[in-house]
């Protein structure tokens, strides 16, 4: 089974520029997540999709971050304009839909390391 694919692996931009990340989840996984992981911290959820609908975007800085999941498969996360504090690893994860009361573990991609100069 292929894992979660993310691109690019690394990105360096200057502040105020824009950047986009792409994610392809595990086939058949209905739920897709974008996380931000700042150095020395655990991942923090930015947005969660169930198929192509947003379930939770309460921690997404909507003035500069946007995300979409067209057709309920691939997803893109965009930052425009970038700030210095956006330097982080952006992780995409996917999971199967919950089965009754049983939660399903999330499976992560290797992330995109973003550096803002």
């Amino acid at each position, binding site marked *: 089974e292929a894992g979660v694919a993310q691109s690019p692996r690394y990105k360096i931009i200057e502040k105020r520029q824009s950047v986009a990340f792409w994610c392809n989840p595990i086939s058949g996984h209905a739920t897709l997540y974008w996380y931000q992981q700042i150095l020395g911290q*655990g991942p923090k959820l930015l947005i969660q999709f169930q198929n192509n609908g947003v379930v939770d975007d309460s921690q997404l800085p909507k003035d500069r971050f946007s995300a979409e999941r067209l057709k309920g498969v691939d997803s893109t996360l965009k930052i425009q304009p970038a700030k210095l504090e956006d330097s982080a690893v952006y992780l995409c*994860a996917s999971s199967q839909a919950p089965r009754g009361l049983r939660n399903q*573990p999330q499976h992560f991609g290797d992330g995109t390391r973003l550096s803002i100069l």
Partner: protein
Amino acid sequence: DQQVKQNSPSLSVQEGRISILNCDYTNSMFDYFLWYKKYPAEGPTFLISISSIKDKNEDGRFTVFLNKSAKHLSLHIVPSQPGDSAVYFCAASVTRGAQKLVFGQGTRLTINP
């Protein structure tokens, strides 16, 4: 508001001995807990999970213990191997609703030969 805390940033254990990683949480609504392992330049890998209806779950060398009254969980690795050297993250969620995961800060485990 740090709802999931891993108070030890690092842990060093000798090969063959037991590694014990700890995690505390504050939100009593959490009912599903997971441990992830992360190598440098890779995404976190799911290791083991436990539901709040259990107090122990075992998978090979890995065992997770949950103490709901103390809001504490721990991961035991026996015996520890050099390949276990990684950063370990504890995470928690509420089963109903969005199943949003809240992560701790991570503990860097180093297994010494």
